[in-house]
């Protein structure tokens, strides 16, 4: 029961948290910014509308939003929010979940290519390229965690007596992991400095240009999926930062969402003070995260016996 509530709450809270980024950016730029519930209004508006489909597109175009949304939803089903046991979990679930995200990406890319638009093709090529690099980082993180406590599922990483967090013996390594994960978060969710979701020129976008032709409920599914994906990566970092060992579930939840909010604020600050990198610098940026976690893994050869 607790798990179901926690899962539903996560889905409901994700759009709100995403709005925090907009608010922070507006605040730093000296503007008032949109209302905090803006993302819910956007979703409601999109769900109410109809759609226009390109004559070039086929059924794959309509499949794209559904598959990518489902893949993110699957990941959330297996993730322990605020130390609460997830709805589902088994030894080895991390691999199938990462691959399901890959499936979502596969369909997003081919849905973009289905429109026959050169701009969307360009975005698709970049998405495919950068995600191969980010995926390598994630797998190194998995193997590092496996070496640290032999866990092979999100639930086992972050719950139980041997949970991996900044207060455990291998904390120094986790500092590297957290920085790397933040880079992966920025990459996978198309944030500055990898991608600029708010730019006005399609040529310079990655993710936004891939969904140019989607409209109405299809677009709403994509947007919601994007909020959930950002939510997942932030929760990943949050779990590393803070172990949830208090007896009071509500207090745990409060601290959890507090830290989540801080991460979103950090994303907002990053976006405000940085410009997007030139495209040829982005791979180096992502590879930095790989180097960090690989270094952490090598260090375990001496420290973890």
């Amino acid at each position, binding site marked *: 029961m607790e798990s179901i509530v926690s899962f539903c709450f996560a889905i409901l809270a994700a759009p709100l948290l995403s709005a925090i980024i907009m608010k922070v950016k507006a605040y730093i730029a000296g503007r008032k910014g949109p209302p905090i519930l803006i993302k819910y209004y956007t979703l409601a508006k999109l*769900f109410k509308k*109809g*759609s*226009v*489909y*390109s*004559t*070039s*597109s*086929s059924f*794959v175009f*309509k499949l794209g939003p*559904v598959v990518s949304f*489902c893949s993110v939803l*699957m990941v959330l*089903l297996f993730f322990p929010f605020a130390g609460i046991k997830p709805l*589902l979990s*088994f*030894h*080895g*679930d991390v691999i*199938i979940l990462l*691959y399901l995200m*890959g*499936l979502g990406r*596969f369909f997003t*890319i*081919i849905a973009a*290519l*289905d*429109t*026959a*638009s050169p701009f969307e*093709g*360009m975005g*698709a*090529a970049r998405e*495919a390229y950068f*995600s*191969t690099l980010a*995926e*390598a980082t994630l*797998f*190194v993180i998995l*193997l590092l965690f*496996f*070496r640290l406590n*032999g866990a*092979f599922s999100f639930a086992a990483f972050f719950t139980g007596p041997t949970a991996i967090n900044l207060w455990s013996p291998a904390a120094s390594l986790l500092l590297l992991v957290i920085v790397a994960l933040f880079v992966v978060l920025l990459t996978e969710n198309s944030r500055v400095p990898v991608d600029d979701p708010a730019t006005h020129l*399609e040529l310079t976008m990655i993710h936004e240009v891939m969904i*140019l*032709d989607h409209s*109405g*409920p299809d677009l709403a*599914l994509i947007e919601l999926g994007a909020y959930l994906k950002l939510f997942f990566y932030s929760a990943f970092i949050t779990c590393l930062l803070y172990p949830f060992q208090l007896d009071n579930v509500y207090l745990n939840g409060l601290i959890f969402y507090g830290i989540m909010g801080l991460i979103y604020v950090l994303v907002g600050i990053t976006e405000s003070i940085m410009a997007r990198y030139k*495209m040829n610098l982005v*791979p180096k940026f992502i590879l930095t995260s790989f180097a960090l976690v*690989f270094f952490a*893994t090598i260090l375990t*050869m001496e420290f973890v016996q």
Partner: protein
Amino acid sequence: MDTFFLSLAVIICGGVLPLIMHRHFTIMKAGCCVLIAAGCMLGFIDALSLLLHPGVAATYSLPWLHIFTLSFQMDSISAFFLVPIFIISPLAVLYSFHYMEKPEHSFRTAINYFFNAILIVSMALVACADNIPTFALAWEIMSISSYFLVVYDYQNKETRQAGYLYFIFAQGGAMFLFAAFALIYCYTGSFAFTGFAAIPDTVKLVVFVLAFIGFGSKAGIFPLHIWLPYAHPAAPSHISAVMSGVMIKMGIYGIIRIYALLAVPSMIFGQIVLIVGMVTGVLGVVYALGNQDVKKLLAYSSVENIGIILIGLGVGMIGVASGTDAMAFFGFAGAFMHVFNHSIFKSLLFMGAGAVLHKAKTRSIDQLGGLLKRMPVTGRTFLVGSLAISGLPPFSGFIGEFLIYYASFQGIHLQRTAFILSALAIISLAVIGGLATACFTKVVGLAFLGEPRTDKAAHASEVGFSMKLTMIFLAAACLLIGILPEPFVRLAFRGIADLPLVGTYNPDIFMDILRNIAKTAALFIALFLAVSILRKLLYWRKEVSAGPTWGCGFTRPTVRMQYTGTSYAASMIDFYRPFVPVKTLYSGIRKIFPGQTTYHTEVIDVAETNMHGKIVRPLFKLLQMLHWIQHGHIQLYIGYIVLTIVVMLLFL
């Protein structure tokens, strides 16, 4: 073994029939299909029953030429490799029913069927051979029959060159194999396989390396893969499907067999296989990404998958050497599973590529586009095959890769080298997975989706019934293995039962994980259906209209402005530049009113250029110095023969 030989006899009959009846084109094809299918079905049942009811391995032997004994043995490893041979080959023959549709080439088609039957039989014999002469004989028949299949279109110069290249690699590889066998014979003095374990350990290493090179040139390990991207595009598509799906796996079979026979738990074997596997896998997929010729791309993708299989084997061997049972067990099981899966989706993809080539008359992705609407069945099955080969759940490719991941993760708790290698295995699997996704989104997205880039693609239409049927069957198999993996994984576990040093492990804990994976896949599908229905409801009574693609403010887009395969892959190829150089020929624009300009870009295979520059050319120079021996006088040639015989009689 009686059923097995009966099935081979039926297949041979199926091959000989077209030679006799080549004047009746359609009857010949139908008869051949039926006989080969019947024979393969028989063989399949035999192999499967041995896998399902493990017992004593079946053996059979007969004397040959008074000197050699031909002996055969079917243990669980052979039986497992027989399964794809007997499933994929008849489907490929069935596919060819509508693919080979030129009655004016009736006799040539008949010969193609004949060699196809010989190829099937020889592959089955390779898998069952139980001593050196039998194995060598079957291996050579396999190489030669497949050579004749490759050069089907012999009037084309490129095909002849491709065939020649394949022939050189097949025979060069065989040379290494014979060297390995000869070395073994020096120590054991017998042709039997059973004596291999008795030779000294240092010699075993040499034997293994020689055999690895020999088998590797057949399987397509880097840098011995050069023949694949030439031979596969040159061969008819159903032959590419069999060669890539099944025949190159015989190289893998050979590596496994020689490892099992040498029976030495040394770390170095695993290290060699694993490192070669990682290099092969990553470079294979990068080259696949760089090529715009669909069949060439698929050939490189086979190289990649051989890499994945070798990673599995290498991890398994390291597991054996370090005494980590689970690692050994799942490494080998994963490799076996991937052999099986790859045979299915790779032949499906080659058949899809064949269908495209058949109707659109071009293999270049940059000239295709929009085929999904024109060839609905081919397009959809190709999409399924692409998802499977990218290792994405809920399709078959994921299961094999998951087993290999699982094995590699078991090695994470080891120390030093074994740990580093396990970690590298995981990272390279992840990189290969990501790049394979990029590669196959390219094929599906650019060849099948969007708008046709040329008239050829615009006028393509759906292929014949038998081609559609085989592709649908294979695509269904990809999905079935993905959502109900348990029986197939059990089959792979049975397959490794006769491998020495593994097999004591109890896989029950893993079966729980596997069931959970199946459940997750099912849940995903259920979720997908639920969201699809939700989407339908959201569109209930809403205005849905069609319009042109948003051109970002540009009002006159043309189909030629679409992203091409070259541009899609450019930045990724650039990342791997030292290993994947790109040759660009650009005439440039120099005048104020430029005339016709040309632009050509091509990915260079470093293995090919280096082998050509560093081995073939010096060798050629050296051999030219011996040119005076060849002068064309037959009397002197007879003299050479007599001289050789005299020398041999006197000194040996």
